[in-house]
């Protein structure tokens, strides 16, 4: 079958690879009908995630048709249309039972690697390094889905692939970013990053009752999209000082909650960028945390900083003093997709949201390498690339 393979930093190729097989009773094989490139795939593309090996199949946002199920999978049958959540969760361990599926205790066969970096291991993730399980991803024609009786969600015939696909990651991820803000009537929410996840966070903040949502980015087309499609206020950090602007917009108090939907490769204007980029290049810090630093400094005292952008290791100059002295709450997590999928599908069915609004490009799977380039370089106003195997 054809699959998008990570060959090296900046080198992704569509190659012919062996088809997946059922390895365990609770597995299913899914024939992929629609898949997508995630912003977090760009961290792999740019070589910021350790333990990638040449030939690893990428992709953790995918959906398709059930081709085959293991003996232990009773709730799915051949031909079912399913969306597959990006974290692999067993559904039985204490973490899964708490609804913290992305920290499942059982699904990372390489848990020891993750423990070295993070203390304990989270769940395994499709196509996202060996440290997170070494599972082949879904930018391919087929994928093996472990614990298929727990993760995949059946999609009714009336909902198109493009509407349903983002239930696999970015829609629940954005939603969880807003959910963690514990939004109250009258709240102002600032969102760093107007990429797909940031836009879902903005939309979700509105759905959860935020009075005002402010988008922060440096790409005018992304800010324009967010303004036109979601109706948020926008700030371009290349043009204004974000702290001053947010302070002014919120009457001198700061946003009630700040969402970091940027993660470890954030940018900033000026010499600070060079400082962190150099430290990152020589290995003194693994992640560049400007958006996070800004979000912490800008947040109202007693407010919530919600981090859904991906960080991998260590950050530098972390404003812990602001968190302690101003009673801020820092919340984070890889999305517990399994917990959010069903209620979010209901929102789609009710017509409250059509997640396909983020799609800017549709390419055949063969053109995945071009999709990565376009997405990385923000060519042709690229926001979200969907691939069709």
């Amino acid at each position, binding site marked *: 079958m054809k*699959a998008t*393979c990570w060959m090296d930093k900046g080198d992704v190729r569509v190659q012919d*690879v*062996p088809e*997946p097989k059922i*390895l*365990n*009773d*609770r597995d299913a094989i899914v024939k992929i009908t629609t898949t997508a490139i995630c912003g977090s795939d760009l961290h792999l593309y740019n070589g910021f995630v350790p333990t990638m*090996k040449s*030939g*690893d*199949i990428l992709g953790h946002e995918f959906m398709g048709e059930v081709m085959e199920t293991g003996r*232990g999978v009773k709730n799915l049958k051949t031909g079912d249309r399913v969306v597959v959540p990006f974290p692999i969760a*067993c*559904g*039985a*361990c*204490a973490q899964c*039972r708490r609804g913290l599926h992305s920290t499942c*205790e*059982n*699904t*990372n*066969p*390489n*848990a*020891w690697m993750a423990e070295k970096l993070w203390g304990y291991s989270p769940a*395994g993730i499709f*196509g996202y390094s*060996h440290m997170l*399980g*070494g*599972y*082949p991803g879904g930018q391919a024609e087929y994928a*093996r889905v*472990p*614990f298929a009786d727990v993760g995949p969600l059946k999609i009714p015939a009336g909902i198109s692939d493009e509407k349903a696909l983002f239930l696999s990651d970015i829609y629940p991820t954005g939603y969880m970013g807003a959910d963690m803000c514990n939004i109250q009537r009258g709240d102002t929410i600032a969102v760093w990053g107007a990429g797909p996840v940031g836009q879902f966070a903005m939309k979700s903040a509105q759905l959860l009752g935020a009075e005002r949502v402010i988008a922060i980015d440096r790409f005018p087309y992304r800010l324009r999209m967010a303004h036109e499609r979601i109706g948020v206020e926008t700030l371009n950090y290349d043009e204004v000082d974000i702290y001053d602007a947010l302070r002014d917009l919120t009457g001198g108090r700061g946003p009630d909650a700040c969402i970091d939907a940027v993660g470890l490769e954030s940018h900033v204007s000026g010499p600070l960028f060079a400082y962190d980029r150099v430290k990152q290049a020589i290995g003194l810090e693994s992640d560049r945390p400007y958006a996070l630093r800004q979000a912490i400094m800008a947040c109202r005292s007693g407010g919530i900083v919600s981090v859904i952008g991906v960080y991998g290791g260590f950050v530098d100059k972390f404003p812990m003093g602001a968190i302690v002295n101003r009673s801020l709450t820092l919340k984070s997590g890889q999305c517990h997709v399994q917990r959010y999928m069903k209620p979010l599908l209901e929102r789609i069915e009710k017509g409250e949201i059509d997640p396909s609004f983020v799609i800017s490009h549709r390419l055949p799977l063969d053109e995945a390498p071009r999709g990565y380039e376009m997405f990385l370089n923000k060519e042709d106003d690229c926001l979200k690339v969907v691939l069709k195997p």
Partner: protein
Amino acid sequence: MAMQGTQRSAGVVSLAGRRDRRDGGWLARMSRPGEERFDPQRVGTALGWFSVGLGLAELLAPVPLLRAIGLKGRSPSPLVTRMAGVRELGAGVGILTEPRPARWMWSRVFGDVMDLALLGAGFAARRANRKRLAVATAAVVGVTALDALCAQRLTAMTRVSAGSPDARSVRARKRITLDRPADALYRFWRDFTNHPKFMERVETVQVTGERRSHWRARGPAGTTVEWDSEVTEERPNELIAWRTLPGASIEHTGSVRFEPAPGGRGTVVTVEMQYSPPGGAITAAAAKMLGYAPEQQLQEDLRRFKQLMETGEVVVSEAGTQGGAR
């Protein structure tokens, strides 16, 4: 006598051990009949006091001391001698006060070598009294040998006091919490034929009696190891302890305990293993270098045990079965 190392860190027993150490002179006790002649702890304590004395002398009266060992003039200078004194004092205090004096004893050995170098340099000095210098050098050589022997013994005893029945063995202990009741876990564990399902290196287990079983496992470098094991203690839903029978290629004892986690949150499983690898600690160190770390192996086996008990299967990714994620 070697067992005293084990006892030092263990409450009541350790008090008895210390009292025992205080009465009587160490020289007298060294050759007491019926006991091992060389007790590194007593010798170590004596050497510690010797360090303190020598250190004070070097620090407070470097010039008379240098003259006494046949060195006059500037080589080595009183300053160097004072510095050596600081070193000696440090080693002495370390040996006498630290719970694990082995490394301080090694610092004495290191210091001895430095002293020998300085004495060697002294022979070249024009104003040296070579006869006195030779006596001093001989004394230091003797002390060096004693230090090295004592340090070596203390190091071996430190290994013992880490909890193994003898200095050659390797110990591993891991705990894991499972969201399953203790009785189910106990039943599964007690049926030893289940073990190849989660113990990576175990290939087959045959039950050969009510308390006995025969095990076959993959050893290092493509070898196969076999042993017979006997349950030495079992308390239903609480504990199983076992040991290998004579003739085992990897002698070991082990135990597994099942305890309720606080707040009804499942069961805490604790496994303790003590291996005596053929060739002892050296083999163990070599195996560790080759990646066979018993602690890590036990951790991974327990993870698979948890997966199997909680989800019904051992989790695999293609990377694990085919060596590449494809």
